[in-house]
């Protein structure tokens, strides 16, 4: 059975502890907070990529979490740039986390997960009950910055971890 994407639920609890990643915070989020944020706090929804080869035990190859986000300003000082911006706060979807198990990295799973996250976001933006302008993420290291830059996300900060943004307006207007 090929890799499949599924929304995380309690039935996946037994699979969580097998997930490995070089960033401890990404492992810890999946194992300790993802279900809580889904069921109790209602902060984020996590999707997992499950690999279940025939006759073998299922494993989580990667995951991503989506949440809504309100992009706001730290100061109220007038800026010339504000003329080109919609009024703050600007609503967006936050790709809160995206991680691939370290034993299956370099096989296109990150790209596949990113496409899934973007597809879900565009689906809601096009026909869901909400309007939002931005697709936002926090890149955890320089490799992640480079990965997201390939998809056109622009970094807002200079340091890493780094906040990155994609303007959805052009994507929603395009036919593809």
């Amino acid at each position, binding site marked *: 059975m*090929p*890799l*499949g*994407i599924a929304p995380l639920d309690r039935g996946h609890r037994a699979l969580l502890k097998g997930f490995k990643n070089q960033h*401890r*915070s990404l492992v*810890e989020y999946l194992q300790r*907070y993802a279900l809580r*944020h889904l069921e109790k706090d209602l*902060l*984020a929804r996590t999707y997992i*990529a499950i*690999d279940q080869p025939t006759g073998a035990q299922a*494993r989580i*190859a990667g995951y991503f979490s989506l*949440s809504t*986000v*309100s*992009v*706001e*300003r*730290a*100061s109220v*000082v007038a*800026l010339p*740039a*504000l003329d*080109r*911006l919609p009024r703050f*706060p600007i609503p967006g979807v*936050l790709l*809160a986390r995206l991680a691939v198990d370290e*034993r*299956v990295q370099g*096989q*296109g*799973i990150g*790209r*596949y997960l*990113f*496409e899934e996250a*973007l*597809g879900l976001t565009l689906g809601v933006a096009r026909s869901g009950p909400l309007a939002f*302008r931005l697709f936002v993420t926090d890149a955890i290291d320089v490799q992640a910055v480079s990965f997201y*830059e*390939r*998809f*056109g996300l*622009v970094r*807002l*900060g200079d340091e890493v971890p780094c*906040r990155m*943004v994609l*303007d959805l*307006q*052009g*994507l929603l*207007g*395009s036919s*593809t």
Partner: protein
Amino acid sequence: MSRFQAQTNAVLDDELEDLRTRLGLDPRQKADLLREVAAIAAWVVRQAKAGRTVEARRGDDVQLFAHPVIDRLRGKGDAVELPRLVLTDTEVGRLARLLGRRFEPTPALRAALQNLTSSKRRPPKVRWKKPAA
């Protein structure tokens, strides 16, 4: 209750006395000892509130700092972290440049959009690397 408190105080006194000698302070420097201990504890709490893991390393030997209070702090940090992103003026400037420019998708983004609309889209085949011996 008072007996429990007395025992607890004795244990605390022993620990503080041990710390005092390890930090090279003399018995009259109780305030300095408290200041040092508070500074160390405050640093640990700040790291935990920022969502960082606190650990001690010597070569491959790693000891994770674990404590119920730290878990509670980290839980609270996560609960308030997600819904708001507050931008500095520099970040606002960059966002304005992004939103003001013409839509020109990168090749990877164009490919991703095409993949999403393709009926032939398939997930990658996964090959699990064996753990190093």
